[in-house]
């Protein structure tokens, strides 16, 4: 059991003029796979370094209920893998051995642990090579091994795949995934790449401008983004966003109107302006006019891969643009199409704060 709890944690690099992290409250209840996802500069690495004890902060961080403020980094039961692959100028074997050299273990036991980690990570063939002369992918694998051998309760991974060449990235990603499945620890993975976050974690904290916008299971974040930003950031392409106004009990988008979904009737009754979000894969698109379908014009079609296509749609008077994702076998670029907005998939956000209104 390892529980990581943050209460009102803030951090500024310039003595309070700007904040890299603002009033973060977050609890990771138990061992599991977490990720901090957000654009660069959103504070995710800062948050990770605070958990590691590498940065000054205000607020409190607790591990299993113990306040970590006075606990030195080497006693935190933490291991970390950095964005740039860090190895010590020694052999791969010595690198792996280094973090456990102080533990009171029989030398055979140490040796056994090094061998175990090296076989999991497939480092056996290069065990005697000088680690600092290896390529970035191998160096990062060594760094990962060094993090795992400590038997720390919490493993922090700070964009470990970013500086690895593309073809080796997938191999390393698979290794990380396998380790996560075998070792029961808290894994906190920092990334700006949502596909990494989706593969390597169960719960995702989406961050922007020093705040955690939403911390939830990946399915829930995808289905019910708490903020427009989250909806737009997660998914490729991201959520469609349309500015709407309440008019005569309908949602008005200048050149078309939609009925108000039952869940939002109360909010739209009270607010004139709002933002509507809807995922691109939630539309039904038809080549023929049907009841409740809205006419659009298909400007362009792009292949998304795996048989899926992205339609770039614009409304009658070109006031609204949409992206729709699906197989769409009979839609042609430059033609008129009819689009159905399923009421259950429509999400309404506050125009000012971008926050969900439910």
């Amino acid at each position, binding site marked *: 059991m390892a529980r990581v709890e943050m209460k009102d944690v803030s951090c500024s690099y310039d003595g309070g003029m700007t904040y890299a992290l603002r009033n973060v409250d977050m609890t990771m209840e138990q061992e599991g796979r977490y990720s901090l996802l957000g654009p660069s500069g959103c504070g995710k690495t800062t948050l990770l*370094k605070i958990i*590691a004890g*590498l940065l000054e902060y205000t607020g409190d961080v607790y591990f299993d209920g113990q306040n970590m403020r006075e606990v030195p*980094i*080497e006693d935190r039961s*933490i*291991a*970390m893998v*950095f*964005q*740039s692959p*860090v*190895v*010590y*100028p*020694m052999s791969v074997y010595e690198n792996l051995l*280094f*973090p456990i050299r*102080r533990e009171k273990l029989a030398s055979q036991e140490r040796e056994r642990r090094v061998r175990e980690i090296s076989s999991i990570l497939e480092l056996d063939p290069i065990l005697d090579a000088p680690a*600092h002369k290896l390529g970035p992918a191998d160096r990062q694998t060594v*760094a990962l091994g*060094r993090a795992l051998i*400590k038997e720390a309760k919490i493993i922090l991974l700070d964009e470990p795949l970013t500086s690895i060449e593309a073809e080796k990235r997938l191999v390393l990603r698979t290794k990380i995934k396998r380790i996560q499945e075998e070792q029961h620890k808290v894994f906190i993975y920092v990334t700006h790449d949502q596909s990494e976050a989706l593969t390597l974690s169960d719960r995702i904290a989406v961050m922007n401008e020093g705040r955690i916008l939403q911390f939830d299971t990946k399915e829930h974040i995808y289905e019910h983004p708490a903020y427009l930003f989250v909806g737009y950031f997660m998914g490729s392409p991201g959520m469609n966003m349309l500015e709407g106004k309440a008019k005569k009990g309908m949602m008005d988008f200048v050149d078309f109107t939609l009925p108000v979904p039952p869940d939002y009737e109360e909010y739209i009754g009270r607010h004139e302006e709002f933002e509507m979000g809807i995922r691109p894969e939630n539309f039904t698109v038809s080549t023929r006019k049907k009841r409740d379908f809205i006419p659009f014009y298909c400007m362009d079609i792009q292949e998304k891969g795996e048989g899926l296509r992205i339609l770039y749609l614009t409304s009658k008077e070109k006031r609204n643009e949409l992206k729709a994702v699906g197989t769409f076998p009979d839609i042609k670029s430059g033609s008129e199409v009819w689009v159905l907005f399923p009421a259950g998939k429509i999400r309404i956000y506050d125009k000012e704060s971008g926050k969900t209104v439910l």
Partner: protein
Amino acid sequence: MNKRSSKQLLGRTAKVIFFLLVLVVFLFPIYFMTITALKTRSEIETRTTIYPHELNMKNFREMTRGPWKRAIINSIVVCVSSVALCLPVSFLAAYAFSRRPFMGDIHLYFWLITNRMAPAASFVLPFFAIYTNIGLFDTKLGLLFSYTLFNLPLAIWIWMSFMEAVPKEIDDAAFLDGFSVWRYFLRVFLPVLKPGLITVAVFIWMFSWTEMMFAVNLTAVASKTLPAQLTVTVMRLGYGVDWGMAAAGGTISIIPGIVLVIFTKKYLTRGFVPLRRL
């Protein structure tokens, strides 16, 4: 032999001849200095010969005793102590500047660098005045201090350029793995910075070995270094220039440079080019 390979052979011969010529141009002064030291005084002063007709070891024998011996020892002592003092001090200073931001660090660093921009001559008179008052005139300690003024900024600057190329994450990783700062220096940081260490040491040594402005003006007899002693050969009144001695002293004075360059060329040529990221 076909036409092409004969053409190649011609090209290669031309290349060899060209480089031999270049070598002669560069090596001849050194050769001429060395053989001049081996000539007799009358041979030097009566005709120009390209090899010593009569071998004379007197000049080199002179190097092993009296003022020359003392000058060589002084030079070595000042150089070794310069390296011993400046290398660790500049390393720690550069580490602080590059890794531990503190208030006014940029200004302090800039001030240090500007020390290197003033000519040595502008420091000589103040140094002379102060040294004669506090008893540092004509001491090796006095020379060491004055050299430090010039050695430290350059050394810090070179260290910095090497340190900037080492990702800061390696510090964080080492502290997470339980290294103390000193163990981290010894086991990780210095091994990574070995080319920097060698470059800095060579630069400190060579500055201290070749420095003349301070050496001539802040010493009299006991602490003369080799460059200062060399000037004596030109200035002996009523005796003319002692070419033989000047050549022998000159020959001795270029030896450390040659040795250093041979052993550290690999690191020096990499020099200030930022390192391959670790």
